[in-house]
């Protein structure tokens, strides 16, 4: 297992090189240095000397290949220098924003998966019944309304009109939970439609397999078949699906953080893109990629736990 983890971590190296190349192409080659500097600087300081100064400061007077290597070096050593708009070291910003996002996304994601698995099992167990119909209709409705609208309505009614939750805000420490409850609820509402649909289909596919018929022939009860046989075997597609959802954590955190003014990393990233704050952008990208690779690693280990055949090969 240890060897396996090491091997997976080595896979990270080419991925980081590739990711650096993608953003290097977007910002330094397609965007062009002139445009990049022009957009980064505030209007008053767009003089020739200023542009020259910043070009030197960001190493944009080097050949492209050196610029690329610089970018890779920054990403690997995690030393991104100072943010141009906030005048703070990037590492400090990251340290401040990442825990906030983690507190928002990790519980929300866990609730999402657990709740939708339960709902999907219920729908698959009583398939064709009224509960199944209602869940299917609700999930189609949830899939067809924009996340933005659901979040806006949720904030408007639950927080503003009814006053059940604070509208927005943030504090340090445990008091922040008060501000996080509504974002968590909205997160689950927004995502659960897709998940229930997918999980239900997976569970139904699994319930047509031969081993289910065998179990039923041996006299195993319906509930035991669902919990011990079908759910366990469906874990592999479910895990694959969960990994595929990880990039969507960005979308969710980004929207919710902007709406509820939670100072997380999605918020930081949007500001960085809007103000061409490249050091911060690179750092946030790096955080996301590390997060992604970490999660894929965990799910690969989970695969091995769920499916004994994976360990053998």
């Amino acid at each position, binding site marked *: 297992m240890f060897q396996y983890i090491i091997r997976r971590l080595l896979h990270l190296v080419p991925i980081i090189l590739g990711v650096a190349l993608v953003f290097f192409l977007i910002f330094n080659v*397609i965007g062009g240095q002139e445009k990049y500097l022009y957009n980064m600087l505030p209007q008053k300081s767009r003089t020739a000397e200023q542009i020259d100064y910043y070009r030197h400061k960001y190493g944009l007077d080097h050949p492209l290949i050196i610029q690329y290597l610089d970018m890779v070096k920054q990403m690997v050593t995690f030393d991104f220098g100072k943010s141009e708009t906030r005048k703070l070291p990037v590492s400090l910003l990251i340290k401040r924003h990442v825990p906030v996002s983690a507190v928002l996304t990790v519980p929300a994601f866990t609730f999402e998966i657990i709740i939708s698995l339960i709902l999907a099992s219920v729908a698959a167990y009583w398939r064709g019944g009224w509960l199944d119909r209602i869940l299917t209709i609700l999930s*189609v409705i949830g899939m067809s309304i924009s996340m933005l609208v659901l979040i*806006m309505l949720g904030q408007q009614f639950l927080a503003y009109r009814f006053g059940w939750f604070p509208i927005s805000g943030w504090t340090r420490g445990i008091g922040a939970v008060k501000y996080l409850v509504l974002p968590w609820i909205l997160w689950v509402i927004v995502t659960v439609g897709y998940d229930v649909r997918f999980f239900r289909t997976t569970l139904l596919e699994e319930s047509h397999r031969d081993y289910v018929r065998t179990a039923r022939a041996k006299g195993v009860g319906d509930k035991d078949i669902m919990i011990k046989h079908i759910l366990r075997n469906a874990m592999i597609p479910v895990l694959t699906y969960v990994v595929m959802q990880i990039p969507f954590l960005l979308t969710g955190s980004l929207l919710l953080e902007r709406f509820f003014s939670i100072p997380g990393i999605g918020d930081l990233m949007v500001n960085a893109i809007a103000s061409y704050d490249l050091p911060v952008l690179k750092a946030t990208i790096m955080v996301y990629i590390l997060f992604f690779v970490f999660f894929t690693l965990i799910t690969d280990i989970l695969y091995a736990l769920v499916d004994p055949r994976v360990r053998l090969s």
Partner: protein
Amino acid sequence: MSKLSKSEILTGKSPMQLSMIRLKRNPQAMAAFAIIIIFILLSVIGNFNILGLQDAANKFDLDNRYVKPFKTIQHPLGTDNFGRDVLARVVVGTKVSLFLGAVAGLFMIPIAILMGSLSGYYGRLADDIIMYVMSVIVAIPGLLIIMSLVQVLGRTFFIIALAFAITGWVGLARVIRGSFMQAREYEYVLAAKCLGASDARIIFKHILPNLTHFIIVRFILNYVGVIKSEVLLAFLGLSVIGVPTWGNMIDESKLELTAGNWQNMIAATLFMFLFLVSLNLFGDALRDALDPKLKNATYKVDD
């Protein structure tokens, strides 16, 4: 007797015709298809300025700001903060969303087919390189690439469509790659090879037609995804500039809700909802109709 066998030959149907028959028998799918056609007509009306819709969508009328819906006949769905007619705007917005999804899909599919078939059919080096590219793109959240590209290149229609295509092809290419890897070993491919068919002929004439249903269904799924993502882009201020789109309207409404002006949001959400529900239902029905595994079943029992 000869008459009988002759008529049998005449009534023989291709798999595609059979799927279309299955599709036509599904009333839900046909209703969804009708709604999709209506939306396409709406986008055409909006595009060619029939009924003066574009003028109505862009004309400022500052005396009639925030007219509530269903109050006057001139503005059935009310007006927005510049006194522009919401109904006209939402119809014109249909055009952008529909075209965006279609163009993004049309950009995406050739890339996916090319990459998927190259890596699946040839394997080895081509496969390694393309798999590497795919794993890099998968590691970055798609929205991040889209946001950066649109920010750098500008908020025009084609750039946004291209950005969606660049991030969207990976999923389809994976499916195509997997199918090509399987198909490479099948007898019909070996037979074609023995008869001296070129690689291009095998890829495009022999293997690819078997994947049509994957591609069509993925196109529809992608369409839904693009329309929903356009709203997110609008929220970030990165949607198509200067024209009404569903996303821009929903984004505008976020500051109007507290004052009780719902018309922008309700109109855009309603249109989007109708379109996406029809698209989802039609996509599902199409998947069921095209799936070769279900060839003899008239109706599928489960979802």
